């Protein structure tokens, strides 16, 4: 427990000190929310209040940016620079380390969600979520799914240099076709079909339903099932593909 807290504090320090990472994963969704909400938040999107629609979208985008992209990049860089390998020679138990890394990035995401909700309330007079517990459960499920996929993704990335290109090429288009920024209705059916298979659209939908329509998380078992399925896929990939040692040599 002492070790876990020790590592968790170190992880927080490392995250906020890595300015690019903190900017692209934590700050950018918040900045985009402010920009887009000022631009067209007062319009109605998909039968819902534009502000709420954007808020749910940016929380989904934030989940992908922090727990998927941010986690994958951070782990690949540490693996390739030899930091992970060095940790293996210390008495820090592997699970303590992994739990601390996961807890740290999930904390960043939850903080981001809180900031988004608070800004929506303060700047655009959006009501606070009526079902905070459901919202929390949905956010945790989303974070777990993307974190598992993020660790799984590290198995496919061979070098630190190319890692951010690969990660961005994956999650940014998915964020667009999942309707995080604006209604996905304008996209071709083929793209929307792809988005339906992927987890992000379901996470955004769950967040939206909880916040906009005041539904409980379990009122949409289909979306929950898709997320759980991806979470399992990601966990298998993560367990099989995770490496402590650099792949390049």
């Amino acid at each position, binding site marked *: 427990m002492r070790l876990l807290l020790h590592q968790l504090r170190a992880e927080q320090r*490392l995250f906020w000190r890595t300015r690019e990472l903190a900017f692209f994963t934590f700050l950018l969704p918040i900045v985009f929310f402010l920009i887009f909400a000022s631009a067209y938040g007062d319009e109605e999107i998909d039968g819902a209040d534009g502000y709420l629609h954007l808020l749910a979208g940016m929380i989904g985008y934030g989940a992908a940016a922090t727990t998927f992209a941010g986690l994958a990049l951070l782990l690949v860089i540490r693996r390739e620079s*030899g930091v992970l390998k060095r940790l293996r*020679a210390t008495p820090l138990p592997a699970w303590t380390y992994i739990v601390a890394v996961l807890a740290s990035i999930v904390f960043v995401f939850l903080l981001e969600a809180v900031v988004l909700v608070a800004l929506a309330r303060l700047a655009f007079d959006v009501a606070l979520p009526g079902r905070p517990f459901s919202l929390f459960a949905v956010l945790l499920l989303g974070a777990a799914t993307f974190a598992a996929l993020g660790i799984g993704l590290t198995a496919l990335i061979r070098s630190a240099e190319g890692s951010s290109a690969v990660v961005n090429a994956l999650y940014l288009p998915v964020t667009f076709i999942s309707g995080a920024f604006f209604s996905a209705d304008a996209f071709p059916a083929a793209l929307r079909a792809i988005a339906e298979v992927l987890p992000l659209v379901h996470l955004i939908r769950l967040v939206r339903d909880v916040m906009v329509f005041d539904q409980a998380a379990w009122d949409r078992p289909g979306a929950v099932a898709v997320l759980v399925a991806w979470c399992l896929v990601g966990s298998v990939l993560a367990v099989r593909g995770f490496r402590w040692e650099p792949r390049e040599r």
Partner: protein
Amino acid sequence: MTANAVEVQNLQKSYDGVEAVRGISFEIRAGEVFGLLGPNGAGKTTTVEILEGYRRPDAGTVSVLGIDPRRPTLDWRERIGVVPQSGELYPNLTVLEHLRLFAGYYAQPRPVNEVLELVGLEEKASAKTRTLSGGQRRRLDLGVALVGDPDLLFLDEPTTGFDPGARRAAWETIRSLRSLGKTILLTTHYIEEAQRLADRVAVLRRGEIVATGTPAELTGVAPASRISYRKDGERIDLQTEDPTRVLHELTGEALRGGARLEALEVHRPTLEDVYLSLTEETE
């Protein structure tokens, strides 16, 4: 408890057909500095990483502080320190933050101020790692490996790429570790480094140990001493196992004949000569 910190018997390891280590045996006594000397590709890192538990041997037995590194325990990790051949740390943490972070992983760490002093980074304590020079980073590598106060320290080419001044400073540090009672396995391709630091040296060549012994023992065996001089403008080279007698005869003869032995030199074999003769390609 055995008196040997490390015991290696008939260790073998290949990488898809490449035999990196071909059945080597050696032991490291508690409290000694053991040098694994050999050119690039000789199998030093492979050997060290097997002892550290990173790689699995194909055959042979290995015992490190009484433990098989294929089945490492947390207690065992408390007692070893590793300076890898390459690799970085966190660019955005300072020297002091690194030492505190790693100290936190151990039950009984060495006080970080002591470590700072040991590796000579007091002045850089609050500098971010990315602002450090190559030599300073290498010293931080050592600091991070030392902060757990290990009994056994693995140093894989700790001074490669250093300028001569920095190398001498690093040697001082390693000597002071020895006097703290640490057992040290040092790999190097610098003959002088092995000679200056190691109590015993094993010379590794293409995965095989071709000689083991103290630096004095190694230079005590062949090759012979060389005596050279010029006589009537002609350069003469002699090899002998008994330089004292040969020199006496030579100089006696020259004195009697009133001749001069110009540019007279006697070369004692250095570890370098031994090393070169041992690691020379024979085919």
